Structure formats: C-alpha cells, structure tokens
C-alpha cells in the first residue's frame, strides 16, 4: 500500500452525509456515488483528516469497529484505491503530517461490526457533463487572454 497522504478531491468532488449515508458527486465526470456503513466511516476519516495516509486512515477506522487493524486494513486499502481510481480522493502534493487523524467514536461495546465497504456508482448523469462541460476559471486564468493567443 502506497504511504502517501490523501484528501477529498475538492473542488471537483462535493459530498454530503444524510442518515449515515454519504452521497458523493464528481462534478468532472458526472458520476455520483453512495457509501454506507464502514465506507461512510472511511470517507469521514478522509475528509476530516486531509493528508492522512492509508495506514493512518485504516487505524482510525479500525478503532471505530470491533476489529483489529490487521483484519480490516486490506479492505480499507482496496476501498481507498477505488476512491482514488474514481478521482474522489487525490494524493496530497506534499506529505502533510497528520498528527491528529480523526478517530470519531471508538467502538465500546462491539456493537458495530466491520463489513466490506462498497462504493455504489451511478452514471446516469454522465451525459449532462459530456454534452455541457463546465469550466470554472479563476481570476488569474480568465478572462485574461492566453499568452499564445492574440487579443483582438
């Protein structure tokens, strides 16, 4: 598992949690996602601890469940890799010391058991993005003319 820090891939990714379920929208691809259970915990740790690496995230998530780290770290790593493939998380450019990775509420009575996290993917909005691509331009890049284009 690569030991590089991760962050939510904002601003192209927006997300909201409702009733314990996370809905994630990738504005660039038009895909959106649903994550529940352990997946929602993983997402929560990632978004609350930008710069934490996969091992630190797994350790924080494991503390929320009645499972030892070595029993869940592989599945958490695979889930993080899936998030990265879908461009929902990105590696931080420079490693950020994550001295206080969000722990949330640790399991106290074993009531929560870890289940394989699942990223449910919906693609039915893709056409809107493909047909109507959106470009958000900051003040430095637009409306100024590109250097290689003569301004008329």
């Amino acid at each position: 598992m690569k030991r590089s820090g991760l962050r939510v891939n904002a601003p192209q990714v927006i997300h909201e949690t409702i009733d314990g379920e996370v809905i994630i929208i990738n504005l660039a691809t038009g895909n959106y996602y649903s994550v529940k259970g352990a997946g929602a915990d993983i997402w929560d740790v990632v978004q609350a601890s930008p710069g934490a690496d996969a091992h630190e995230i797994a350790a924080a998530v494991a503390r929320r469940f009645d499972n030892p780290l070595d029993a869940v770290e592989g599945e958490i790593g695979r889930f993080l890799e899936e998030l990265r493939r879908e461009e929902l998380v990105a590696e931080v450019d420079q490693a950020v010391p994550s001295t206080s990775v969000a722990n949330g509420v640790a399991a106290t009575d074993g009531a929560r058991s870890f289940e394989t996290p699942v990223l449910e993917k919906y693609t039915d909005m893709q056409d809107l993005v493909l047909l109507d691509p959106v470009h958000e331009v900051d003040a430095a890049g637009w409306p100024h003319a590109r250097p290689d284009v003569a301004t008329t």
Partner: protein
Amino acid sequence: MTAASAVRSADLGFGELEPLAASFEAAVRAASVVEERDVRLADATVRLRSPHPEMLRRLGRAFAHLELDEPAGQPDLTVNLWDAESGGSPPPLPNTEDEEAPGAFFYFSNHQLRAGFQLGTSGDARVLAVYPNAPTPALSVLETSNARGWYWVADARRIPYWEQATPLVYLLDWWLRARGMHMLHAGAVGTDEGGVVLVGKSGSGKSTAALSSLDADLFYAGDDYIAVSLDTQPQVHCLYGSGKLMQNHVERLPFLLDALANRDHLAIEKAVVYVNEHWPAKITAGFPLRAVVLPRITPGLVEARYFEASPVAGFTALAPSTVFQMHTRGQDSLVRVRRLVERVPSYVLELGSDIASIPHAIRDLIATVGAGA
C-alpha cells in the same frame, strides 16, 4: 468583430461592468427605444429591459403570468437583455479557444459580478443545416449587488426553445441563492394549503406528473425549475409558466395536443406548452411545500400509488440532478438540499397507465402529509 469570432479570443474588459453597460447602452441608442416588463418573481420585483422587442417577447413569454399590471417603482432586480443585432459592440467575452462543445459553460466570479458564458455555436448556415437547434452564444451576468443582471446573446433569433421556455436560469439561480432561496431542478403542483415538488432526472416522469395536474384540481407551479425558500416551513415559488415534455410522453396527455407551442418541431424538440397562456387559472405563484415526490414510471401498473421513502432517497433524486442541471458547483447546494429533505418527507410516486389517477394520488398524498403535520 463579429459575434461569431468574439468567442474565439479573450476580450479585454471581460469581468468588468463598464463594458457591459456600454454595450447595452449602445444597443439602446441604436434602437432608440427600450421596452420593459415588470414581473413579481419569488416575492420580489424583477424588471426585464430590452431594446430588442422580439427578444423581450421571447424571453418574457414564460414569465407572462407573473407580469405586473403597473410598472414597479424600484425593482429588486433589473435584467438588461440585448443581442449583437441590436446595435453597438458585443460585450467582452471569454477565451473559449480549447472548447468546442456547444453546451460548454464557462463560469467566472470576482468582487463585482458572477458570469456564465454558454459557448453555443456560430450562426454558420452549414452548422445550422446539421444542428438546426444549435444554441446561440449567451452571456449571463449578475452584479454582486444583486440589483442588476445582464443577458446578452449573439443572435436573439436563435435563442433555443428550451431557453425560451425557462429563460435566465443561471442568472436567476444566483440571484435566488443570494436571497436565501434555491432553484431546484423539479416540478411542483399543489393546492393553496400545500403541495409537492416532483424530482428526478429527465425522463423520470416528473413533467408527466406535473402536467397531468392541468386536467385535475391541482395548481401548477412548474415542471422543470422552481424556487424554494428554506424557511422552517419551506415555500415553493413558481418561476416559469411553461412545461416541456418528451415527445413520446405527449400521447399520454392528449389534452395538451392543441396547446403545444412547437407541434411542427416535435421531431427535434421536446413538446413545449405555455400553461400560463392556455390554463391561466391553473397557475399558482406558490404554496407551502409538504413533500418531496419521486415519480417512477412503473410498467404494468394501472393506477398511480405512493409510499414513503427515506430522506436519502429524496436527496439522491434531487441533489445530483439539480447540481448537474444548474451547473451549481458548490458544496452549499448539497447542504441546502439536505436541509430540505430533512424538513419535509419524501415519497415515491409510482406512475401507471391511468394518467388521470396521478393527480388524485398526489392530492391524496398532500392530504395525508397535511393530516400528519
């Protein structure tokens, strides 16, 4: 510079208000006239001004049911409408060199304004021969003061039918958000006591459900875009007096056939009906929102029926659709939708072959929610 070439390079002065005003005032001077229409929109007064009477007519048609009998003293928002044919120079436009998709949208904001530019296509006859509905380039600007808006197109004759049916969507979305409201990609029907928003992606049946209310005892507040205030008791506000329906759904609502605005273009356009012209008594300015409703076309079912859904289901049906349709790219949009589905219940409305049963089911749902409120 022609309107067609203007979008190929960045123009100095883009992002500034003075060139916009200069372009508009030049068009007014060239036309020697400016026409105005005042409408009451979402509890505020909006003035549409244009030196181009036909452009004003095209864009004002969907707002006609909200038009005031007397001019407003000082409108809350004034929107200036003009095109390259109106005279004067076009306003400064952005650099869009690397983009070709006609639907591409360029968004920009600074301390003075928010701007969105829809790339569209040139008016080249060869392009129009292949894409007869190719939209004209369009620039929407809202000043940060929230008091003035600007809407320029290259050629008002090529404002597409969907823009005429629901004009100024981006500009009004920004303006409404600044006023604590939220534009939703949704339909809405109800009674004076309360109503529902109908949510889902295009083709989900929300227009069928909304327009079926015209043949029943429900009021109509829109089928595509509506505004909601996010107070403790959310309120629906009607924006547009139009409706759009996929061509293959028109036959399910035969009473609409004689009212279609574009019956000769159904091969390439959605069916458009101006409800405010044909059923003016059925249009409402709004009502208290009682529920979020997710229409679902259900093969094999006859009579429409409903059942309660989770807030997550309501959120998932409403948020992605609104975000992608409105090009609203902020986390705040999701927060507002979450607040909405936490304040009112969500229901799935299964649509069967008996269209007349749809408004009855909605009416029953409203009564059920109202009784529990």
